[in-house]
């Protein structure tokens, strides 16, 4: 049995009280509950406070560039579908710099779980606006207030993402459940996580979120209805839903690749002389 201690990582550089700690706990719990050993995990992370998470737990780690988690993560999964691949990044990382990869990973439906620490601000670079900053949010780069934000969940549904969820760093247990479901889901699982940044976001605080979030209950909410899900994804203000917003079964990218028919690419042997038959085509 895998234990929490197996996921003990190095000391963190986050601010005391940061929402990232709740996410870290939830990730560890989910993996322990799923009984997955660290060597089977590959965490791919971007740059930002969120991107440091893998250093604070254990597993294989590929920390990449700002915004580039998804290309690296999805390709690793293609090469070795037996790896449990978790991509981790911030809102700037994922929806700003990495917005294009986000869109296309959703549509291709790679079997990867994607955690976005959404603090609605740029943390590591000290408090600039983010694509998810609430409209009017004032920062040093937007003294006039932020423009309208991106809506990650609505976009994910529009892109026909197959697992679209929102968690809250202040509720690690619920979040752990979402992460478990995301990892178990076959296909691309987006988990956007409301994450208080206690240093630079004095609007969207723990309290602010706590007063608003409520859990979707699958007995009364059907996450397989796309239109209803799209409507639910718009909800933001007095009430903010957390839980699985949309879910759908569809073919993964890996399943579409004929080259994967003989098992993970990483285990295929190379024999240069196999090319002989191709050389003949050129004669």
């Amino acid at each position, binding site marked *: 049995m895998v234990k929490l201690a197996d996921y003990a990582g*190095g000391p963190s550089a986050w601010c005391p009280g940061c929402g990232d700690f709740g996410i870290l706990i939830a990730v560890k719990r989910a993996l322990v509950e799923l009984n997955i050993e*660290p*060597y*089977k995990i*590959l965490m*791919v992370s971007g*740059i930002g406070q969120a991107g*440091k998470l*893998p*250093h604070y737990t*254990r*597993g*294989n*780690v*590929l*920390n*990449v*560039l700002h915004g*580039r988690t*998804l*290309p*690296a*993560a*999805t*390709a*690793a*999964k*293609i*090469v*070795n579908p*037996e*790896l449990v691949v978790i991509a981790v990044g911030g809102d700037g990382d994922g929806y700003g710099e990495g917005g*294009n*990869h986000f*869109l*296309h990973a959703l549509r291709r439906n790679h079997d990867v779980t994607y955690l976005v620490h959404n603090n609605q601000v740029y943390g590591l670079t000290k408090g600039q606006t983010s694509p998810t900053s609430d409209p009017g949010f004032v920062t040093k780069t937007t003294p006039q207030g932020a423009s309208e934000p991106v809506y990650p969940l609505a976009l994910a549904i529009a892109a026909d993402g197959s697992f679209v969820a929102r968690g809250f760093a202040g509720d690690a247990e619920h979040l752990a459940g979402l992460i478990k479901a995301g990892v178990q889901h076959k296909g691309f699982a987006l988990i956007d996580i409301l994450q208080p940044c206690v240093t630079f976001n004095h609007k969207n605080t723990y309290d602010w979120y706590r007063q608003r979030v409520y859990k979707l209950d699958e007995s009364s909410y059907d996450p397989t209805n796309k239109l209803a899900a799209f409507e639910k994804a718009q909800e933001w203000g007095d009430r903010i839903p957390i839980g699985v917003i949309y879910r759908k079964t569809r073919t993964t990218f890996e399943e579409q*690749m*004929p*080259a*994967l*028919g*003989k098992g993970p*690419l*990483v*285990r*295929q042997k*190379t024999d*240069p*002389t*196999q*090319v*002989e038959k*191709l*050389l003949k085509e*050129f*004669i």
Partner: protein
Amino acid sequence: MVNINFMIGGEAGQGVQSAGHVLGKILARGGYHVFADQDYESRVRGGHSFFRVRGSDTEARAISELVDVLIALDKESIDLHQKEMAKQGVIIFDGDKVKNTRGNSGLFSVPLERIALENGKNKLMLNTVALGAALGLASYDKQILSNVISEYFGAGDVGKENVAAVTAGYDYVKANFKIAFSHNLTPLGDGRRMLLSGNEAIALGALAAGCKFMAAYPMTPSTSIMEYLASKGKDFNIVVVQPEDEIAAINMIIGASFAGVRSMTATSGGGFCLMVEGLGLAGMTETPIVVVLGQRAGPAIGLPTRTEQGDLEFAIHAAHGEFPRAVLAPATVEDAFWLTVKAFNLAEKYQTPVILMTDQYLASSYATADKFDLSQVTIDRGILLSKEELAKLGEYKRHQITESGISPRAIPLEGGALVVTDSDEHNEEGHLIEDAETRTAQMLKRLRKMEGLRKDIREPRVYGAAKPEVTLLGWGSTYGAIREAVDLSMKDGLAINLVHLSEIWPFPVEATARALQQAKKIIAVENNATAQLAHLLRAETGYQVTGKILKFDGRPISPAYILKQLKQEVR
């Protein structure tokens, strides 16, 4: 010596390219050495394009500019290329279609469309008729013609009709062309040489090297590499992904390589620009990747279907910060195959990016080559720890500091050890650090890999006079043209030689200096405007070129162009 130059000219969409390719195959099958290049505009229909095919009984390394047979599929082809015709050259055209050709000499009308309709039942086969006519002129072996045509078009009706068309074209000429044609092409030997393009050679090299993952975004002139590999995906267990952009492409191959397989991408300058940050990531995380950079005329979109060698210094210095890399630039189609294999080996041995530089000219030129001896292909995956070795090791450190700078590699999951790396500066374990000592140690470790890498770089090719009065200096795809210029100049009595680099970075400082020791005049021959190799040469060796033969109009450098310019440089 037999040496004949064909040209097929017409609009995009008229099948100039396939006709040219088949013609090359036919000549190769007859035992001829073939070299063929193509010129086309950045459009899908219309405009003007041409395909040149040279057949020779000795090695053909470049196009010679005088055309012996021009197959003109439209009037523009006659107008544009009339001036390139050899003295006794013949222009085959369809007099039923193309009028007002007065004033042009060497014209020979063949009712291409009519013959196509009569024999092939489809006027689109007029190309095939024209091929037959052209080879009829040269009294080529009719059997080879129909063999190759039927292989190319298959055994079905289309194949049969094309054979009928080519034969009819051939016969028409035999019956109607009354003057003696300058060339008589008797087949030589059994013709078991391959005819392939630079891009095809790279794709084959990648398969032979065991590349299992390619992510690339279409961009001329590199697109056909991914297209070829995609077509072999199932058979060779290679996944080819066309992602949203080039940034995704390079970061995908980094992810794939980290996960354990040989991975590559291919692009041109614009796409390469977008990959630069990823290149640095591969350098920092010590992830082996191969990036094919097929150059075209820049800056920006430039001339998107045309050739240039304008990206050398960019490739060598691309990305912020300092890290080891190799830059290889194949000289020939054969080189393209072998250097692709080498690129994968160097990438894995030194765990760092390798850039393979071609250009539109090499990528889409066809040349004959002896069948690659696949038993000579070695796969060197570098220090890659097995599960057993890892188990013995106990603690695994992805970025262990070693004398060679090379840290043993492990594959996530497969080896059982945790593999950790970071784009930030990191310690041996792969975790990010801030202190000066660890930073310095890791920088030095990475840069030490350059020393080994440098030893694996081959010396420049030196060819020509032992005591040269003039030395031509070149790199990459211009090899064939410069070498032929050397041959021609030597015949003219000039003591001249060629020093040519196809493995450029780390710069082979001593070998190049040695090769230039005898040089009196060094003339850089480059397909660019600023003589980038010359600049690099001076930085690395102190040697300064005395002259420059440059071309940057999107067209390749030909032997004739070199000779002409040489006359001005050497008086």
